[in-house]
């Protein structure tokens, strides 16, 4: 159900929510960018709507709210293992349509593909998603081409418009909170003879709310349709391989990349105790395929670029029935070598149409 609230009322509701849940949203982290004196927009806990960055795309995606960059799977003390506690509170995550589509990709790998992942599942159970609309396109995104510009499966939609906040709520627990307030407000409004107006005493009214979404991006992408093992020999991979420095940033900003590597550590003060962790991994970085004994695969950056690109737009779809990439454009924004993944895809499609 849709609601219109005053900003003050919305902040009040938000503070109530923040007591019951951990709210993750894109925040401006001043001075924490990659280079000196640069800022970064990343996910972190927020306590007020004003802390959320609404007008720009986050540099990193929401995924670190569900999958920690570095997650302890268990502690060990000689023969014993202990699993760390899961989240106690519900988790509210503010994200955009492209990222909400990425949740389906994370679920596909972590909840389905083979075994269910214990750690992801217990986070996911607690997670609710609040859609942030896009009233205009970002610079590098191509969500329209990927069909991820609209999302319906949100728990709530929230838009701040000056002193007004628009909400569309689908999740029952959020609904029950708001509805009680709205009913009280509407009753008060009727007494004043101005039923349904946001500026009346109740501060919260029921109305129709449709999420903002973009229908056109600056970047447009056409997916190649005839990729196969034959595509391995293309010159384009070598060309990108010569430019790529294998830093792996594209994987870390990607909302759909899910790879990790196991890491055991032990404590300096007590070498008998330690922990097993998983940390984010990148298929572009050396060591990703290394086996004990010295065998490794995809040794050149060109092969790794091909592996990544084909996974995003071909291999994943072959296995699960829909493309993996959601067109957020973050990999293009973050590449220190200005490699444009979207341009790479368009070139592959163009090569196909010309052949």
């Amino acid at each position, binding site marked *: 159900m849709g609601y219109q609230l005053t900003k003050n009322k919305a902040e009040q509701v938000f503070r109530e929510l923040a007591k019951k849940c951990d709210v993750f949203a894109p925040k401006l982290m001043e001075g924490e960018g990659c280079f000196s004196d640069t800022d970064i927009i990343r996910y972190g806990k927020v306590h007020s709507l004003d802390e959320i960055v609404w007008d720009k795309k986050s540099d990193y995606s929401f995924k670190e709210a569900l999958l920690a960059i570095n997650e302890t799977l*268990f502690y060990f003390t000689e023969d014993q293992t202990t699993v760390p506690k899961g989240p106690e509170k519900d988790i509210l995550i503010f994200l955009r349509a492209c990222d909400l589509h990425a949740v389906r990709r994370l679920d596909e790998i972590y909840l389905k593909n083979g*075994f*269910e992942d*214990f750690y992801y599942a217990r986070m996911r159970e607690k997670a609710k998603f609040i859609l942030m609309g896009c009233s205009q396109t970002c610079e590098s995104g191509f969500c329209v081409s990927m069909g991820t510009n609209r999302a319906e499966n949100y728990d709530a939609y929230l838009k701040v418009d000056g002193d007004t906040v628009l909400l569309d709520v689908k999740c029952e627990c959020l609904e029950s909170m708001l509805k009680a307030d709205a009913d009280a407000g509407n009753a008060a409004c009727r007494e004043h003879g101005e039923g349904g107006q946001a500026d009346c005493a109740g501060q919260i009214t029921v109305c129709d709310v449709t999420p903002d979404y973009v229908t056109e991006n600056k970047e447009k992408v056409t997916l190649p349709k005839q990729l196969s093992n034959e595509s391995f020999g293309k010159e384009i991979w070598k060309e990108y391989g010569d430019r790529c420095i294998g830093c792996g940033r594209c994987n870390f900003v990607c909302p759909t990349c899910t790879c990790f590597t196991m890491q055991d550590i032990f404590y300096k003060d007590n070498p008998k105790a*330690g922990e097993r962790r998983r940390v984010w991994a990148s298929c572009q970085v050396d060591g990703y395929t290394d086996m*004990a004994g010295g065998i490794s695969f*995809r040794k050149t950056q060109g092969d790794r670029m091909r592996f990544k690109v084909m996974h995003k737009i071909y*291999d*994943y779809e*072959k296995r699960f029935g829909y493309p993996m990439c959601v067109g957020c454009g973050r990999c293009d924004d973050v590449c220190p070598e200005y490699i444009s993944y979207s341009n790479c895809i368009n070139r592959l499609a163009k090569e196909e149409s010309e052949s």
Partner: protein
Amino acid sequence: MKNEYIPQLSTIREVIKHTDLEYTFRMEFEGEVKPGQFFEVSIPKYGEAPISVSGIGEGTVDFTIRRVGKVTNEIFENYVGDKFFIRGPYGNGFDIENYKGKELVVIAGGTGLSPVKGVVDYFAQHTEEAVSTKLIAGFKSPKDVLFREDFAFWKEHISVIQTVDTAPEGYEGPVGMVTKYIPDLKFENIQNTAFICVGPPIMIKFTVMEILKLGVPEENIWISHERKMCCGLGKCGHCKIGSTYICLDGPVFNYVDGKELLD
């Protein structure tokens, strides 16, 4: 919900030393296991490594481990009277049914014999279930030969060529790569053959080329892949080739599918 990442502590029942670098650890394990499946074997603080099952007994599984990395070094240093953590079994493994009633040839290179050893054991014990069973096993040199006791048993029941890549002067056994012995194989009916080929990627490549030269249909060949695997659960991504997860869909593949797996 089961937390698949938590390993179980397993006691070492026996250690069989093949060479300085390769031991078989017989570990306690209750549960169903197929040859060709693998476990994640770990020593806390050093990490986990995917290790194939090289033997299946009553309440035990064997892991033939080569000392080549951080985890396996630690296993060799600290095993005495001790325990490891294991979790599994994972992967599809070999399906014995595929090889019954066939002229079976198993070709293995080095520790590649481990994952397929259960199949060789089965047909050495049940010779009547295959038309014939041949094993071609290659090792680097005579001192690298694994499973010496098993070879003695196999030689009594099935046809065995145990070759070494290089040998000192005066060595009397077969010398040369496994591929050298493939052209001489004779069959009653080439259509009714089954080949299993396990070893390092380069060995698989050249061995399959030789097998195909005999006129063997591709669907009569099975291979087993090794890849880096951090989870064994279809999550970590390291073993993925194309749209295939080696840990879930493999490691054993019929060559018709396996030939499409290009890194």
